[in-house]
């Protein structure tokens, strides 16, 4: 019996499917990425986030990724050109690798800019390098006559990733702050009373509860509802409704649109083939494409090297495991944030902090407080004041700075943080010289406890 099930699964994974779903994913992704890059540049954020700051926070293990000053514009240009090639399906694999490397480098330059959706883009672009998204409706196909059929697992890889993202986002919401205190929505919603159509509702006392529970139920159920044909049409309405609502309520940029575009991968093959056929018609009428001819490649199946599906399986396994590392750390996750990133905890907490750094010269005993504005931009200071790893890195940076000036510094921090509607409370132990603390993956015992318990995942 077991052997029968096993071979059924293998046959399912290898089932030849139309390459259309991957092609529409590729085109959507490329367009959304192009728009994202243009928007980032247009809003002046390249200068504001990568050129103006004199100091950049780096990811652990990636401090060798240095900011490159004016050349950052070149990096964005490179990524942008790559998106054009991705949309057209021109030298797709090279374009995808270029996009992945340039985009990820941009994100690695400064931890301040970390967003779950930038991480999502890096993950998706990594997967896309290994997926045959250029086999249909692409310049590569015109040139090379690529197999028009792809194995089921190439499409399911993307479905599984989206499944993980939604489901983990839902699991993250299973905690008493979200479900019982209805935070942070209780902080975020009432101030949006001025929104047209729904503003009146957001002020009501029942709104945060409704939105909190609704959001959790949505995240947990939607991947299942999208997977099955019968529930998909309704599910997709929910997807559009949910993401448009978040776009209206929160300043989250391109994320809703990227998610809506990515979720299309769940739709049926017929749906995607119709889109491709439609696009083909438009392009033929604009004389950008010769009329379709049937070719022997339309029946061939893409068979990559055996290592590819194994690589993707290992990668997805890591994606399942990485969010779980938060369980290895003591203390309240939302407070200490150890293991918070890369776990699809999206729009889950509201945190604000205030950190006052004091330099004490061990030789003379002189001390003074530091004006953070001398070293960090307002946005950097905001992010730093509530995240311990930033505080530690900044303290070491200050230590180096003062050492160069001839002092023998110790750095102490007096800081408070407010989390999810709680009053601000002391955050960093003010008696700890942070220059004595090394930046490791070990638990940060210099963070004072929250003094409150948040039950849940």
């Amino acid at each position: 019996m077991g052997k029968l099930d096993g071979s059924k699964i293998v046959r399912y994974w290898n089932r030849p499917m139309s390459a259309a779903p991957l092609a529409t994913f590729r085109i959507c992704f490329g367009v959304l990425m192009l728009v994202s890059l243009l928007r980032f540049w247009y809003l002046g954020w390249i200068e504001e986030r990568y050129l103006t700051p004199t100091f950049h926070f780096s990811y652990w293990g990636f401090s060798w990724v240095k900011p490159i000053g004016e050349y950052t514009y070149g990096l964005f240009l490179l990524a942008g050109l790559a998106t054009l090639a991705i949309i057209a399906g021109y030298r797709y694999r090279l374009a995808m690798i270029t996009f992945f490397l340039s985009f990820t480098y941009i994100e690695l330059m400064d931890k301040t800019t970390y967003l779950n959706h930038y991480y999502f883009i890096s993950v998706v672009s990594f997967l896309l390098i290994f997926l045959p998204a250029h086999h249909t409706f692409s310049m590569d196909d015109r040139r090379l006559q690529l197999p028009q059929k792809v194995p089921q697992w190439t499409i399911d890889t993307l479905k599984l990733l989206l499944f993980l993202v939604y489901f983990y986002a839902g699991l993250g919401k299973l905690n008493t702050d979200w479900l019982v205190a209805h935070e942070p929505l209780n902080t975020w919603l009432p101030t949006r009373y001025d929104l047209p159509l729904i503003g009146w509702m957001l002020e009501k006392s029942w709104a945060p509860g409704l939105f909190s529970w609704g959001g959790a139920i949505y995240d947990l159920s939607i991947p299942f509802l999208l997977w099955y044909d019968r529930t998909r049409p309704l599910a997709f309405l929910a997807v559009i409704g949910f993401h448009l609502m978040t776009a209206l309520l929160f300043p989250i940029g391109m994320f809703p649109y990227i998610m809506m575009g990515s979720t299309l991968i769940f739709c049926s093959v017929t749906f995607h083939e119709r889109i491709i056929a439609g696009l083909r018609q438009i392009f033929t009428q604009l004389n950008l494409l010769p009329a379709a001819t049937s070719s022997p490649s339309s029946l061939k199946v893409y068979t990559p090297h055996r290592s590819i599906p194994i690589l993707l399986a290992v990668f997805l396994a890591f994606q399942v495991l990485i969010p779980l590392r938060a369980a290895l750390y003591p203390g309240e996750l939302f407070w200490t944030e150890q293991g918070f990133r890369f776990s699809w905890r999206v729009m889950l907490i509201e945190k604000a902090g205030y950190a006052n750094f004091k330099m004490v010269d061990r030789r003379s005993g002189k001390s003074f407080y530091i004006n953070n504005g001398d070293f960090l931009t307002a946005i950097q200071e905001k992010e730093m004041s509530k995240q311990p790893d930033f505080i530690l890195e900044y303290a070491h940076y200050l230590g180096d700075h003062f050492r160069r000036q001839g002092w023998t510094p110790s750095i102490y921090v007096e800081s408070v943080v407010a989390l999810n509607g709680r009053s601000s409370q002391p955050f960093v132990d003010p008696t700890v010289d942070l220059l004595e603390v090394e930046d490791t993956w070990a638990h940060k015992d210099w963070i004072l406890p929250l003094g409150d318990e948040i039950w849940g995942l």
Partner: protein
Amino acid sequence: SLAAYLDELERKKGEELLSKVINDQFEAARIEINELSEDFRTQVMTDNVAMLEAYDALQVNVANMKTDMLQALNIAVGYVDADGD
């Protein structure tokens, strides 16, 4: 006013309204500052502790306003795409 907005949203610090906490703290700081001499230079040289106490009293409200109040009113620092925390 900011105080009226905070009260409308019923934002509290501990058991009291945040607006009251901030105003009370300003009062406390005012008392400390009134105890200082007209010339801060002499004050520092004669009794620096009083200066530090006045400074600390004001600092409490810096935290109350920059952290509690900004969060309570959902005021964003900087125009950036956000992710929640």
